[in-house]
């Protein structure tokens, strides 16, 4: 195979030299050519011809200069978008976990929201540990948020002594694979006055000196809530955790996301573990990853609704959104708001603002875009309108 590939490469080089075709195929094409050469038992001349034709087909498939790719992409995403139901909430993958889907999600992606409605993570494990249930469960409990409330066996408010009495359930603690000592430490750290006696924890209300009894009871109740909600394990930003066994391996789905800290953990598959928060990916893994994430998320939401949009349209959207190193939204606060032409911006939204600011700064509109030229009534610089005539007047 290696030989053949090299042979194909030679043929390409030869063609480039002799016929000046300027062939620069991706590797996969070269592999395909090599495969065809073996499978079809081609002669060298035939390989040459095949390469030539492939080049012609390849060129034909290219977008031509002056093609309105943006408009076509917008129409190609927009049309199926109209078929999506406005409010669709679905239980994606696993039950219990509610993830925004459909049009709301698509809008979220395109708007580049910082705070998305339902951030989730899919956590995969490396080869050694992806079948280690015990490890996965321990990790899941470490990641997922648990509070004192989750490990209580009894909980009382003692109005006589003005104390909160909590009894921990060792069984539950064990089930959650938590460390008893750690819990004690956390309690002691948070509630300085707490006395821990085996499983019994007694926390006196801090404001016992106040004479107003109503006030005191309120205080005690607030304290009770505080005790119950005391977080004893978990990573910031992550709430509920769901463990699921795929065909082959264990996967953790989370409600909420914290990519940075999860990736820092031992035994995580750094390649496949992901979040649906594009901004987070952008921050942790860089803009290219954010671009890919936009493509994946958009493609997934569309295909989940049974709509198929060519990736290249979505890729164009993702490219535009990430072209400046940060994730920008499509719309007033992003791409459309940063167009160079005053007329184009004014035609979109906030007309007055843009015209006023442009006049203050004395902006000049070169009229190179589409919208500007439609406004003034000139042929648009696209398609038929993208060509002009240049005259060499020295030869006149």
């Amino acid at each position, binding site marked *: 195979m290696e030989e053949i590939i090299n042979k194909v490469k030679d043929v390409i080089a030869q063609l480039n030299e002799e016929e000046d075709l300027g062939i620069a195929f991706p590797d996969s094409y070269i592999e395909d050519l090599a495969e065809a050469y073996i499978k079809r038992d081609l002669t060298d001349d035939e390989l040459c011809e095949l390469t030539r034709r492939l080049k012609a087909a390849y060129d034909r498939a290219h977008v031509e200069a*002056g093609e309105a790719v943006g408009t076509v992409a917008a129409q190609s995403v927009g049309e199926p978008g109209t078929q999506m139901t406005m409010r669709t909430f679905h239980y994606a993958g696993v039950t219990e976990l509610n993830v925004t889907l459909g049009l709301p999600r698509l809008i979220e992606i395109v708007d580049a929201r910082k705070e998305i409605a339902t951030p989730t993570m899919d956590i995969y494990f490396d080869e050694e540990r992806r079948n280690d249930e015990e490890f996965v469960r321990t990790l899941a409990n470490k990641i997922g948020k648990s509070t004192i409330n989750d490990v209580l066996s009894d909980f009382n408010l003692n109005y006589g002594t003005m104390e909160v009495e909590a009894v921990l359930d060792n069984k539950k603690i064990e089930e959650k694979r938590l460390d008893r000592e750690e819990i004690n430490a956390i309690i002691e750290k948070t509630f300085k006055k707490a006395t821990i006696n085996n499983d019994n924890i007694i926390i006196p209300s801090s404001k016992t000196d106040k004479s107003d009894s109503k006030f005191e009871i309120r205080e005690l109740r607030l304290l009770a809530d505080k005790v119950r909600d005391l977080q004893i394990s978990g990573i910031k930003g992550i709430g509920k955790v769901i463990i699921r066994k795929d065909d082959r391996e264990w996967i953790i789905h989370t409600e909420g996301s914290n990519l940075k800290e999860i990736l820092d953990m031992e035994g995580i598959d750094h390649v496949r573990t992901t979040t649906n928060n594009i901004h987070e990916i952008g921050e942790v893994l860089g803009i290219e990853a954010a671009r890919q994430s936009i493509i994946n998320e958009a493609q997934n939401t569309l295909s989940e609704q049974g709509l198929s949009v060519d990736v290249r349209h979505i890729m164009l959207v993702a490219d535009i959104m990430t072209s400046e190193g940060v994730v920008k939204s499509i719309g007033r606060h992003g791409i459309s708001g940063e167009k160079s032409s005053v007329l184009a911006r004014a035609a979109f939204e906030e007309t007055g603002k843009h015209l*006023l600011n442009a006049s203050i700064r004395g902006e000049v509109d070169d009229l190179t875009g589409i919208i500007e030229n439609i406004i003034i009534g000139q042929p648009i610089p696209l398609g038929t309108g993208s060509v002009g005539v240049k005259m060499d007047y020295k030869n006149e």
Partner: protein
Amino acid sequence: MAKINEAVSYFGFEETFSLKVCKDIRKEILKVKDEEKEATFNKYFSEIKEYYQENEYSDDEELIAADFAGESSEKLTDDYPEVDFEQYGIFAAVEGIAVPGDEEEPADDDKDEIDAEPEKASSKKEDVFGDDYSFIYTPPAYAHKHDNAESTKIYINGELLGSCEDPVSFTQEMRQKRRNGEISYEMNITYYEDNNEIYIFNDPGRARRPLIIVEEGKPLLKEDHLNKVANGKLKWDDLVNNGLIEYLDAEEEENSYIAMTLADLNEDHTHLEIDPATMLGICAGIIPFSDHNSSPRNTMEAGMTKQALGLYVSNYALRTDTRAHLLHHPQTPIVKTRIIDSTNYDSRPSGQNFVVALMSYEGYNMEDAMVINKGALERGLARSSFFRAYDTSEKRYAGGQVDKFEVPDKNIKGYRSEDAYRNLDEDGVVNPESEVESGDVLIGKTSPPRFLEEDFGTVADRRRETSVTVRHGEKGIVDAVLLSETVEGSRLAKIRVRDTRQPEFGDKFASRHGQKGVVGLILSPEDIPFTEFGVVPDLIVNPHAIPSRMSIGQVLEMVAGKAGCLEGERVDATPFNQDLEGEIKQQLLNHGFESAGCESLYSGVTGERIDAEIFVGVAYYQKLHHMTTDKVYARSRGPVQVLTRQPTEGRAREGGLRFGEMERDCLIAHGAALTLKERLLDESDKYEAIVCENCGMLAVYDRNKNKKYCPICGDVETYPVEISYAFKLLLDELKSLCIFPKLVLGDKA
């Protein structure tokens, strides 16, 4: 504050209270020399004074008065707000209904009591509801204080009124009172268990329907009552007033368990349908076999039947409706329902019975088109008249000027072509039965000039032509001319133009099952397939219209209609009547037809028998008021708007067809730059602007001197530039906002 209030009531001040009034009163008292009164007065007076001084009010009397007024209004809101029981209508309810009970209207001093003591007010309310009323009725201002989970909120017409402790017995009691006639029968009460709220409604606009009340599994309406009704001893209202039948609205239906038939009835039921078909309204009730249709089709038909042409009134010849359609030979439907009977549909029918064949015909009836029999049309099938009334009067203007009905003189301002006035009589009004088309004058009228100018020659003196003409795109025959007087006593002319509408391509028809379609072919009867007996269908409908829409009612109607024709009897197809189908089939068999309604048809063109059996039946079809003549439109050139110089909008204004945003996007996507420019500029608001090279503003062309110049820079070089007029407008508007848009010119690439 309390002291002041006391003072106010003591002295019975009616107007705004002020120190000045106090002083005046004091004078009065001193005159009479009533020591006791004086003492009281002084006590209050000093108090009042103190109060104002304490609150750092100035001595200014007006200010004090104003302050006091403000204070008192604030006080009102603080206290228990006055609840107008009449307004809520629990007791009095909607107008025209007798006020139940002998509740006296609270006297004025009573009201004061309510103002002062809320507790008393609530006890007072208990009286209203009877002695043993256990629930606590809280006014809105206090409602929030009773936020314990057990008390049920009560809303009247969506407004929170109060709460009660025992919602179930409360609603029961209210219903009982309604049935007893103590509360208007128009009140409906619903208790929502899930959110623990009671809704009472008595406002207009709710759809309500009557049901027989059931108690302990037995309907209250007995055989006895029915006999009395039959004898005329009891009327409908008596049944309602005696609490045998009650009206439920959509909300209260949620609280009830309604049995469809007497046989279904069990202990749990609260109501019994008078007839299952009473759940349908007028429009849906017209549909025969509606229980065999899919619900969307029934909904669609309920909407469409309102668009059907028919005999809309019987005095149409005496009326001048601005627009009216009239079906020429309306028929009563062969397949009817009981609702048709009870709504007198038969005396105002809106359709005709068509012989319908369910088959395809050369593709002329695909996608809900239909082939219609030309012979039938010429015999008057689905023919209708369209009436339009025009009117105008001789208005009077300031300065003794008046409009005048006349055949306008040739030198009048805005004179139309002589041809347009050809139908006018000497009095300036058209003659009846003259054929008119769009633009023809119906009432010749002239008005005085708009501005009277001082001796400015003959031009301004000329009267204007303000005749009434036949609308754009319409034609017809003058049906009636009516001359009368307005309220002011000036002459009034009303003219009704009639236009006969024989069905044509694109006219819309619908059966009674949401099956609408347009005429796709008008076919000579000799080309239409005919049956063994020589019956030629009036209409050929495509069979593809039926299965996906599941309007089985249409199929049944056609069979029933056929059977009805053969029997010479109308068929009752009221929904939820189970055993009709077998009967109809038997009738068809008896007349030598196939029970399913299928027949062999012979091609009208070749005379050959068509292989497939074809379903033929009689269905009631409605002509809907969407007709081609009212809609066909095209434009190449025409009027433009004054402001933008873009084509006008709409058929009536001979407007252009909008090339919208999405259409524009498509041309962009295709890269068709010049086509786009043609649509948006050349065929719209193309404008040649002259631009000053120096300042970049628009220059001016002086026709007298035949010279272009810039109003700012004077006599400088200018260049013509092709822009859209809308853009020129944008530039003007920017200038008016003190923004200086400058056009920098360059050579065309």
